[in-house]
C-alpha cells in the first residue's frame, strides 16, 4: 500500500500534467473543501500558519493514518498544547484511498501551481519558517527534508516532491505496522472521473468505392494542405467579428389597473361564537336580511357600512345591507314614502316585535307604578330628596310611630272592556304568584249575557295578559295546580270550560262541558281543582275538578272522549228543621228536593273532606267517599251562605259568611259556631283568611272591606275600608306572599290594597286562636248550660 503512490509516480508526469491540472481542477469538486482550504491556507494564512506544508504533510500523513489507524499526527506548540489542525474534510476511510492519495498529490501540485500563479514570491517563505518553527512534530526530520525538497524541486511538481516525505513516512509507518498490515485487508477502489466533452463532431465516413470518392479525397487533401500551410499563409488573415446590436425600439404598453376595493370587517369574539355555534340562526337572519335589502332605503349615515359590519346581527348581513345606498339622508327619509315598506317591515318584525313591545310596555308601566309595585313587593321606598341617613332614619321613625293598622290603596286592575262588569271571582295562579285570573259577570245594566275572563299580570295593571269572552257570565274560576296553564271557568248557564294558555296571547278552550248530558243547568257557583290521592276504587288519581252548582249537585269532572263528564259526588238534599220550629209548616219545596249549593271548600290537608254551604244557610261537611250522607251539618245561618273557607294555618277551623250579615267561626268538631262576627247590616259577600296570619281574615260587605284581627279585637274589625262611591265590593282575595288584599267590585275593577302595621304574625298566633276558640266554646257551652 505504501508503495502504491510510488508506482503511480512515474506515470503521473508528462502528458498527464495538463490533464492532471484539468482533472484536478475538475475533481476538485470532490475534494473541493480540500482544495479550497488548501488555497485559502496558502493565500491567507501564511504568516500565521507555521506549518502549512506540515499540515499538508500531516494531511498525507493523516491519509496514511487512515490506512494505518495507529499513526496519529499530533501537533503541539510551545506550551505543549495540542493544536492539531483538524481536517476540514474528513475523508471516508473506505473511500477510494489510493485515488485520494493520488489526487491529493495532484492537489498539492495543482495547489502549488495555483500558488505559483498567485503568490509565488511568498511561497517559499513559510517553508523556511515552518522549518524553523518552534513547534515540534513527531516526524520533524522528515518534514524538514520535505520542505527542503519542495524548495528544491518546486517547479517540477513531480511526485517525488511529496513522495519523499510520504516515502519516509511510509517507511516509518511501515516499520510500525508491518505486522498489522498483513492482517488487514484494505480495498482500493480506482475509478475514473466523468469526462466532459466540449466539442464532439463525429466524423463522416464514406465508402472508398463511392462515386464521388475522388472529389472528397481531393477536398480532404486540400484541407490537409491548408492546415499545414495555415500558419504562415497570407491568404488567411485573422479578423475579428462582432455582431451588431440591432436598433432598439421602445414600445410602451399599458394595462388597465386592477380595481381595488377596500374591504374590512371587525371581528369580535362573539361574532366568532355566533358563527360557530348558531349557524342555523345565521342563515335565518341572513335570509331575512335579504328581504330587507330589497328596499331602496337610504342609509342615515354614510359611514354606516363600517358600522354595519360591527353592528347587531351576523356578519353575513354586511353583504346584503351594503346594497343600500350610502347617501346621507336627513329626516326627509321619513316623508319619502316608506309607508308601504314600513307595513311590510312591520309584518316581518311582528313576531319578535311583539315580545319587544311587551317588555317595553312593562318597563314603562313599571316606571309608572314603581312606588306601588315596590310597596306590593314590600320593598323600601327611598325618597329622592333623602340622601343623608339621619333624615332617613327620622323618616322611618315617623312611619313607625303611627302604629295603627292602615289600608293603603295601591292600584287597580281595570281596562276598558272590564268596566261595567261585576267581578265575580278571582283566583291566583298556582305557580306564578303574579298571575291573577278574574272572572267578570255580564255588563251591569244590559241584558248581554256574555262574560269575560281576564288574566292579569302584576307587571301590567292597565291591560290584561289575555282575555277571553265567554258565552255567559262567569261565576267562578280556578287554576289547576298540576297544569298551571289550565283555568277552569264556571258560568251562569252551567257550562264549565277549561281554558289553556298556549302561548303569549293564545288562549284556547280545551274542554267544555256543554256537551255533557250531566252538566249543570244552573249557575256553577264554585269550582275547585283538588288533588285526590285515593278514590273509591283505591287508584291514585291526579287532580280533578269539583263543582257545586245551583241545582244542588256536587260533581266531580273528568275528561272523557267528548269533553268533560261528571259524576255526582253529593246531592244536597233539603233537611227539615222540624225540631226547632214549633208546629211550623213544612218548608220543603215541591219543585226540587235539592237545595242550591253556593260554596265549596276542601280541607287543606285532607282532600277528601269538604265543606259545602247551601242556600238555606246550612253547612255540610261531606266526604268524597260517602255519596249519601253528610258527615256533619252546621246550622247557624238562616240566609244563603256565600262563602266558606277553611283556615290554612289552624287545622279544623273554618269561617263562613252569609247574607244574614254575620260571619261565623267554626271548629269542625262543634255543631255550633265558636264565634260570630257582625259589624254592619249588610250582606257579607265574601270572606277569606289571611295566608300569613292565623288570626287575620278579611270580609267584604257590599259597601266596605273589613279586616278582622282576632288577636286584637273580636268585636270589631281592625280595618275598615269603604268602597268607592257607587261601587259595591263583590269579592275578596288575599295575596299569598305579600300582605295585600285584592277586592273586586261591581265596576270591573280589582283593587289592590296593602295592609300595613297589622302587628299580627307568627305561628304563636295559632295557639292564640285556638285559645280563643277554646275560651269561646267554653263560654258558649256555659251559655248553653245556663240556658
Amino acid at each position, binding site marked *: 500500500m505504501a508503495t502504491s503512490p510510488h508506482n503511480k509516480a512515474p506515470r503521473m508526469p508528462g502528458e498527464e500534467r495538463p490533464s492532471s491540472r484539468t482533472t484536478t481542477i475538475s475533481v476538485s469538486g470532490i475534494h473541493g473543501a480540500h482544495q479550497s482550504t488548501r488555497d485559502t491556507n496558502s493565500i491567507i494564512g501564511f504568516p500565521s500558519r507555521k506549518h502549512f506544508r506540515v499540515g499538508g504533510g500531516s494531511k498525507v500523513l493523516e491519509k496514511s493514518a487512515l490506512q494505518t489507524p495507529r499513526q496519529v499526527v499530533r501537533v503541539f506548540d510551545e506550551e505543549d498544547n495540542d493544536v492539531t489542525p483538524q481536517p476540514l474534510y474528513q475523508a471516508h476511510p473506505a473511500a477510494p484511498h489510493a485515488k485520494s492519495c493520488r489526487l491529493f498529490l495532484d492537489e498539492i501540485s495543482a495547489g502549488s501551481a495555483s500558488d505559483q500563479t498567485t503568490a509565488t514570491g511568498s511561497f517559499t517563505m513559510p517553508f523556511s519558517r515552518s522549518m524553523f518553527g518552534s513547534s515540534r512534530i513527531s516526524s520533524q526530520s522528515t518534514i524538514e527534508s520535505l520542505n527542503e525538497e519542495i524548495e528544491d524541486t518546486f517547479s517540477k511538481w513531480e511526485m517525488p516532491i511529496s513522495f519523499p516525505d510520504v516515502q519516509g513516512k511510509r517507511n516509518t509507518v511501515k516499520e510500525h505496522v508491518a505486522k498489522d498490515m498483513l492482517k488487514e485487508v484494505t480495498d482500493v477502489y480506482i475509478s475514473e472521473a466523468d469526462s466532459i466533452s466540449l466539442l464532439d463532431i463525429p466524423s463522416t465516413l464514406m465508402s472508398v468505392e463511392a462515386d464521388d470518392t475522388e472529389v472528397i479525397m481531393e477536398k480532404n487533401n486540400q484541407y490537409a494542405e491548408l492546415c499545414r500551410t495555415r500558419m504562415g499563409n497570407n491568404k488567411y488573415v485573422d479578423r475579428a467579428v462582432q455582431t451588431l446590436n440591432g436598433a432598439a425600439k421602445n414600445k410602451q404598453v399599458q394595462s388597465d389597473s386592477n380595481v381595488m376595493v377596500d374591504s374590512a370587517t371587525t371581528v369580535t369574539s362573539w361574532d366568532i361564537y355566533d358563527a360557530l355555534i348558531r349557524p342555523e340562526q345565521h342563515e335565518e337572519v341572513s335570509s331575512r336580511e335579504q328581504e330587507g335589502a330589497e328596499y331602496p332605503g337610504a342609509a342615515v349615515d354614510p359611514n354606516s357600512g363600517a358600522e354595519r359590519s360591527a353592528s347587531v346581527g351576523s356578519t353575513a348581513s354586511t353583504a346584503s345591507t351594503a346594497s343600500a345606498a350610502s347617501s346621507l339622508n336627513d329626516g326627509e327619509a321619513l316623508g319619502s314614502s316608506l309607508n308601504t315598506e314600513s307595513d311590510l317591515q312591520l309584518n316581518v318584525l311582528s313576531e319578535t316585535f*311583539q315580545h319587544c313591545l311587551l317588555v317595553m310596555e312593562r318597563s*314603562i308601566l313599571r316606571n309608572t307604578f314603581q312606588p306601588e309595585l315596590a310597596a306590593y313587593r314590600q320593598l323600601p321606598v327611598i325618597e329622592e330628596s333623602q340622601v343623608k341617613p339621619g333624615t332617613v332614619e327620622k323618616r322611618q321613625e315617623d312611619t313607625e310611630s303611627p302604629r295603627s293598622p292602615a289600608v293603603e290603596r295601591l292600584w287597580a286592575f281595570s281596562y276598558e272592556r272590564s268596566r261595567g262588569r261585576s267581578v265575580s271571582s278571582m283566583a291566583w295562579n298556582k305557580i306564578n304568584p303574579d298571575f291573577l285570573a278574574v272572572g267578570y259577570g255580564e255588563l251591569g245594566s244590559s241584558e248581554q249575557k256574555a262574560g269575560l275572563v281576564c288574566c292579569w299580570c302584576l307587571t301590567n295593571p292597565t291591560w290584561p295578559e289575555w282575555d277571553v269572552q265567554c258565552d255567559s257570565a262567569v261565576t267562578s274560576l280556578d287554576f289547576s295546580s298540576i297544569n298551571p296553564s289550565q283555568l277552569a271557568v264556571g258560568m251562569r248557564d252551567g257550562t264549565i270550560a277549561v281554558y289553556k294558555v298556549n302561548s303569549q296571547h293564545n288562549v284556547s278552550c280545551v274542554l267544555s262541558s256543554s256537551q255533557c248530558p250531566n252538566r249543570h243547568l244552573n249557575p256553577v257557583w264554585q269550582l275547585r281543582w283538588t288533588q285526590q290521592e285515593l278514590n273509591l276504587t283505591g287508584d291514585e288519581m291526579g287532580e280533578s275538578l269539583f263543582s257545586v252548582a245551583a241545582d244542588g249537585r256536587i260533581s266531580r269532572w273528568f275528561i272523557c272522549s267528548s269533553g268533560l263528564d261528571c259524576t255526582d259526588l253529593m246531592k244536597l238534599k233539603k233537611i227539615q228543621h222540624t225540631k226547632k220550629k214549633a208546629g211550623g209548616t213544612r218548608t220543603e219545596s215541591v219543585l226540587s228536593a235539592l237545595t242550591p249549593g253556593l260554596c265549596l271548600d276542601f280541607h287543606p290537608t285532607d282532600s277528601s273532606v269538604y265543606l259545602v254551604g247551601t242556600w238555606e244557610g246550612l253547612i255540610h261537611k261531606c266526604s268524597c267517599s260517602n255519596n249519601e250522607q253528610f258527615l256533619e251539618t252546621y246550622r247557624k245561618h238562616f240566609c244563603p251562605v256565600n262563602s266558606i273557607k277553611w283556615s290554612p294555618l289552624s287545622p279544623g277551623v273554618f269561617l263562613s259568611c252569609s247574607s244574614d250579615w254575620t260571619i261565623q267561626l267554626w271548629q269542625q268538631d262543634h255543631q255550633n259556631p265558636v264565634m260570630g262576627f257582625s259589624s254592619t247590616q249588610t250582606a257579607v259577600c265574601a270572606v277569606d283568611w289571611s295566608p300569613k296570619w292565623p288570626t287575620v281574615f278579611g270580609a267584604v260587605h257590599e259597601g266596605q272591606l273589613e279586616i278582622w284581627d282576632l288577636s286584637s279585637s273580636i268585636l270589631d274589625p281592625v280595618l275598615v275600608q269603604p268602597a268607592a262611591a257607587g261601587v259595591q265590593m263583590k269579592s275578596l282575595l288575599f295575596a299569598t306572599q305579600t300582605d295585600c288584599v285584592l277586592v273586586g267590585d261591581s265596576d270591573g275593577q280589582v283593587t289592590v290594597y296593602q295592609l300595613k302595621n297589622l302587628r299580627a304574625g307568627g305561628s304563636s298566633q295559632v295557639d292564640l286562636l285556638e285559645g280563643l276558640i277554646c275560651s269561646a266554646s267554653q263560654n258558649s257551652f256555659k251559655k248553653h248550660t245556663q240556658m
Partner: protein
Amino acid sequence: MAGTEHDQVEETLKRIEANKYVIGTIVVNAEGIPIRTTLDNSTTVVYAQLLRHLTMKARNTVRDLDPQNDICFLRMQTKKHNILVAPENNFLLIVIQKHVNSLRTFP
C-alpha cells in the same frame, strides 16, 4: 295568524304611545331608519342615530364579556326623563317616558 299578530302589535304599540307618561315612541329598523315615530322628524333622527350607536356599543360590551350573553333592554334614567330602548336583531324600539312623580325610587 300573521294578521292577528300584526293587529296585536299595532294594538300594543298604540297603547304604549297613548300612555300618558310617554313623551315619544320611535321604531327604528335594522338600517337605522325610523319607521314609526310620534316625535318630529329632526328629533327622531337624532334619537335614532345616537341610540343606535349606544345600543351597539352596549351590545358589544355585553357580548365581549360573555359571548353567550346578549342585551335585552337598555334603560337610561336622566334628570328629565327616562329613555327606554328595547333592541332586537332587526330593529330598535325607543320610548321616552317622563318621570311619574317626584319620588324616584330605585328598585
